[in-house]
């Protein structure tokens, strides 16, 4: 019970107090940091969103809900929200599906008769898949500028030209641009989830697979019957992470899209609009209102998805 020798005069309650004091002293620093650098700015943003602060004066004017009512009629804001909706549906679905497929192949898919093993060369692939993850977003952005370049000198269009196909405006066709950017996100994120799911899969006891294989389960069955239910927790976490990632996308959109969020608002996202509203338009109050809206969107998503994906935990 006692962590420190000596000072025995305090008795039991004193010892308890010391123990908790000791624990709290460790928690205090991160707690203070969290309050000052996370909770504080959030609270401040909530307050600023109710003012018309322009980033300069020390005493912003309080305007009540004006910024929020203006949001309702702001078509750029709604375009951004729509894009988040789309990203929220597609990004986690595609990323998790691809990552699960790869993780299964790397860990289980290569085995025979229930002995779990990856496909030949799985160690090599595992490293390769992780490459995009270690690249800075800015680097990825610049890389894909070259990949998506709209004329014949682009990497993709150069390949298409070999097949005799005209250049495609990956980022300049309003109907295609957001999907092109989403593909980059998937490309970049998949590696991390392969590793995450691999860890989940390697935690599944070998004998479960062996038993199933003895009963005649094929790879398909092994995946859907054993692997998927047993790593459901991990997938759930991945889903929330990816959903939160879908609420960001700032850097890629900023670097890749036409005139930052174009063409015709086709790729814009809330963080980009917040940045533009605050730092280009000097409307920090309105930008904060967008930030508050984004905060609630993210929270709602996280709560909802944790709720919806909740399942009975399978004890092993």
């Amino acid at each position, binding site marked *: 019970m006692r962590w420190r020798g000596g000072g025995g005069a305090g008795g039991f309650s004193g010892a308890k107090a010391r123990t908790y004091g000791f624990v709290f002293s460790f928690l205090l620093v991160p707690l203070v940091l969290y309050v000052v650098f996370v909770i504080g700015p959030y609270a401040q943003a909530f307050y600023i969103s109710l003012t018309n602060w322009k980033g300069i004066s020390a005493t912003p004017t309080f305007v009540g809900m004006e910024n929020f009512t203006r949001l309702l009629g702001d078509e750029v804001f709604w375009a951004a929200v729509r894009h988040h909706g789309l990203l929220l549906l597609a990004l986690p679905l595609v990323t998790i599906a691809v990552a699960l497929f790869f993780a299964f192949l790397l860990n289980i898919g290569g085995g025979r008769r229930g002995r779990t093993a990856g496909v030949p060369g799985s160690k090599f692939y595992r490293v390769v898949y992780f490459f995009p993850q270690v690249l800075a977003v800015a680097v990825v952005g610049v890389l894909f*500028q070259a990949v998506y*370049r*709209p004329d014949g000198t682009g990497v993709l269009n150069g390949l298409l030209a070999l097949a005799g196909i005209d250049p495609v*405006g990956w980022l*300049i066709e309003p109907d295609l641009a957001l999907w092109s950017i989403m593909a980059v996100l998937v490309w970049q994120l998949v590696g991390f989830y392969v590793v995450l799911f691999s860890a989940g899969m390697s935690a599944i006891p070998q004998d479960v697979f062996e038993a199933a294989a003895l009963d005649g389960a094929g790879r398909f069955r092994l995946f859907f019957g054993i692997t998927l239910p047993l790593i459901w927790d991990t997938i759930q976490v991945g889903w929330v992470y990816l959903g939160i990632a879908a609420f960001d996308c700032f850097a890629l959109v900023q670097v890749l899209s036409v005139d930052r969020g174009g063409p*015709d608002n086709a790729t814009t996202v809330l963080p980009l609009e917040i940045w533009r509203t605050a730092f*280009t338009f000097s409307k920090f109050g309105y930008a904060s209102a967008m930030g508050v809206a984004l905060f609630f969107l993210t929270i709602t998503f996280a709560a909802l998805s944790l709720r919806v994906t909740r399942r009975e935990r399978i004890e092993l």
Partner: protein
Amino acid sequence: MSYAGGTPKDITRRQMLRRIGLTALVAGPAGGLLSACATSGGAPAASAAPSAGGAATSAANPFGVKADAPLEVVIFKGGLGDSYATDVHEPMYTKEFPKASVKHVATQQIAQTLQPRFASGDVPDFIANSGSDLMDNGALQSEGQLLDLTALFDAPSIDDPAKKIRDTLIPGTVESGQIAGKPYILNYVSSGYGLWYNGKLFQEKGWTPPKTFDEFTALCETIKKAGITPYAYAGKNAAYYQYWMILITAAKIEGNQLLMDVDNLVDGVWTRDAMKKSAAAWAAIGKFMDKSYEGLIHTEVQTRQNQDKVALYPSGSWLENEQKSNTPESFEYAMTPTPSLTPADKMPFEAIRSAAGEPYIIPAKAKNTAGALEYARIMLSKEGAKGFTEKSGSLTVVTGAADGLPLSPGLKSVNDALKAAGANIVTYSSFENWYKELETELRKQTNSLMFGRISADEFCANMQKKADSVKSDSSITKQNRTV
């Protein structure tokens, strides 16, 4: 060529744009009245009289510079270098005042170097406030840190004492440096805007730069047949190069009043006839562009022009310098004014858009403000301006100062165009800095128009809608210009 290579140039160009119009141009009607008495004015600190030098004023020494007072000059050492100061202006100053010592400070970080000095009150006498770390002139002025330069612009020119300095400059220069109706900034470098082409290629093919849109369209057809993209701009990050052209054409049709009305958010200005005609004319030219140009950045398009894949490109005088390392022997930059819509246009074909940039300031609390004013007067002499152009490769706001200088081909064509334009200068646009939301919308709508997604009428209607919403937005501070 590469992206990485494009970035620093991008910054220089942006800085230039910022410098051109960063100052809040509040050209109030009071400007003229106040020019009569330089010592009047709101902030007492800014009222340092020109006679602060302590010596008697005379025709040759209008600010009363004390002959032995030291002068400290801080120069931003960026794209223009600083040899124009060390080799031209400072020697000219010491020649005039041999007993004075000139302290030269070159820096790339104006704000980091000078902000603490402003705070402590130990300020230099003359500052080239440029670069990405420049100080906010509007903020400095509001704190009474800037000297009113009315006395400078009203002082006699060194070349012709019968003329005031303001009359020796390109029209609009003094106004471009006004804050709250008074000139606090000397914008020294002049940029001309128009269509750029390869003079050698045009000569070889027998093409002549178009004077009207009919000629423009015909030329585009011819160029297209030669397998070259007739016209292009970079939609990804430089849509404003294109909207400059749309605004220039509109101003040529109706006159500068149109652009002032745009800046003043006058009701219905975007749907006026001149604007519609200009948008429609440019949308027709847009059909000659390849749609891929919407996804390219300016350096990519400029490089394609250097490779003779693009014939005409809208830009300003910095283009030649920006592309220096990519320009092959076979490429010789030339600029032509934006074509007229019809001969009935209010402004002649020769009219070009010219804007003054590269701000120089004098701190109000400097120890030798008279010396600093004299230094500025030297910069604005023909000899000083000529030396600047020689050393930096940029034209100044001093009219005719570059005449007879061996200029680079592109610079020469800008100089010739400016000379041909004379007083027909298409005015700058202040909304670009005053109302960023309107500017952002204009970029968006310009791409939509030029790449064929909306019609000219829709373009005008969309812009008017945004202008209306900016006008009715109480959170945006409204500005006004009269010149």
